[in-house]
């Protein structure tokens, strides 16, 4: 048995907990908001961009097995509330949607690397589509806390699924909504919006997630104007902790391509290192 103690074991940072459901309502046809009661200590450890790994219940004929990763949509230590905004897509999220007030839900987290906002960045811009907004929502909270200017470019299929707009407004963000219906969400139009911002107040950093189109656009605009940025990425996960290496994606690093774990090295990555897919 090895008895040499020259390194100190790392501190605990993630918790497996059974939390109580406070509510779980449809926000609109596709999205639902899950509100859990969580201990203040847990919520105080949460950061924008991190996620929880949810053990979706086996109920109503649904038998999800692996956990499902979900970004933190909101964390409110004072109200002891942890929020997730999710889209019902398959077995796990269908099971999630069946949770009712008073049910328990086993969660693991907070996990992953959060977004960073450097002290010198003043003008922040986030751009996201659909459920991707869930991931960026707590960034607005953080921006307000730090007294940063935030512009949220929210794009969606139609006006009716534009979520989080109120939330972003409520956080004092400057909200620009773009929808497919009227063509305002086209890449060209987003680029035009960005250029207007760059020419106006300026942009110190971009934040985005999920969409390949937006990634490519922000990489291009970022390179052209020397604007740094971060992207939150998704990949199928098993452990969520960094142990199984199933959640890798390729990144540009040191002149080559390396595989990094979305759950551990991410889910937030440097926007220029991300490889479009």
């Amino acid at each position: 048995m090895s008895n040499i103690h020259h390194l100190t074991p790392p501190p605990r940072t993630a918790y497996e907990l059974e939390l109580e459901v406070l509510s779980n309502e449809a926000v609109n046809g596709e999205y639902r908001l899950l509100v859990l009661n969580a201990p203040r200590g847990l919520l105080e450890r949460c950061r924008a961009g991190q996620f929880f790994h949810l053990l979706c219940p086996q109920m109503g004929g649904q038998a999800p097995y692996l956990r499902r990763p979900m970004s933190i949509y909101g964390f409110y230590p004072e109200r002891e509330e942890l929020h997730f905004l999710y889209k019902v897509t398959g077995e796990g999220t269908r099971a999630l949607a069946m949770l009712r007030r008073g049910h328990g839900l086993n969660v693991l987290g907070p996990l992953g690397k959060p977004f960073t906002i450097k002290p010198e960045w003043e003008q922040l811009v986030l751009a996201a589509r659909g459920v991707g907004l869930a991931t960026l929502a707590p960034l607005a909270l953080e921006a307000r806390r730090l007294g940063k200017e935030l512009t949220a470019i929210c794009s969606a299929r139609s006006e009716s699924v534009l979520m989080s707009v109120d939330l972003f407004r409520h956080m004092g963000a400057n909200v620009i909504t773009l929808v497919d219906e009227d063509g305002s969400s086209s890449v060209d139009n987003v680029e035009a919006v960005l250029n207007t911002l760059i020419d106006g107040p300026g942009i110190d950093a971009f934040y985005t997630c999920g969409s390949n189109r937006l990634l490519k656009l922000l990489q291009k605009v970022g390179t052209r104007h020397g604007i740094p940025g971060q992207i939150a990425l998704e990949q199928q996960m098993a452990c969520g902790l960094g142990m199984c290496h199933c959640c890798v994606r390729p990144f540009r690093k040191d002149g080559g391509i390396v595989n990094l774990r979305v759950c551990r090295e991410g889910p937030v990555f440097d926007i220029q290192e991300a490889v479009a897919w």
Partner: protein
Amino acid sequence: MVRLDVDIGALRLKNPIMPASGTFSEDLADVFDLDLLGAHVTKTITRGFRDGNPTPRVCEVGGSMLNSIGIPSKGVGYFLENVVPFYQGYKTPLVVSISGNTADEFAQLCAEVSVPGVDAIEVNISCPNIEEDGKAFAIRPSSTFEVMTKLRRATSLPLWAKLTPNTGETSEVARAAEEAGADALVVANTILSMAIDIRTRKPKLGNLMGGLSGPSLKPIALRMAYQCARATKIPVIGCGGISTVEDAVEFLIAGASAVQVGTATFINPTAMVTMIDDLRHYLEAEGLSSVREIIGTVEDGEQREGIVFMEAAP
């Protein structure tokens, strides 16, 4: 006070619950104190750098999972400089899992990881190797004996052979490993499986096929653990679908001296800690003073002798 300690050959473990290779890493220290475990077992490493398989690398299949990670590895240098020192922060024995494409490369790695701080070497002979048409060494007794002989010569540390369920000759393979000098058998790795998304008609794994782990594997792995315990005199470490203390006890009764927990940790990261507590309570409730009292106590009666050699279900 019940005793949970068990011996795997010369190595004493404070309890019989340890992680399975590839389902555990330093990262689990985020969730609980790793010194609670009976042993630490690392992800299999190879000598050189390996990228691993294309994604998706895992998928669900009816309450169990498939994986085809492909053993990404940063190579032995990184491992010795970073991973071994990390585990020296703990009092728990460190078991290093290794693999190689050829028997010689495998043996060389075995010698290289025989360093202070490493308490045993688990040799993953369940991986495809290029000398045997891409078959695992542990599919045949002959290739098992050959590679284990080379590995035995390469180290004086305890050598655990990890067997594969992808064989019709479990007992023979187990005996071949014992004869070549294995100190223990880890039974078993995943079984080759496949799943197809009928909507896209694409395999659900980037690598087409992968290994089945989790509850579905349990009855197969339990059978193998029993066969190995009957066929050899060396300790058997059960592995496959163990997620509760009842599962662990089933393997111990079948003849395993300890167990490894894999996929269950993905579902409940604290599964092993819960199992250790529950094992203590189970033994107390049964009025036993040591976990050793249940090892190999299966009441197999007359069937015992004949069955060990029978590999086919009737």
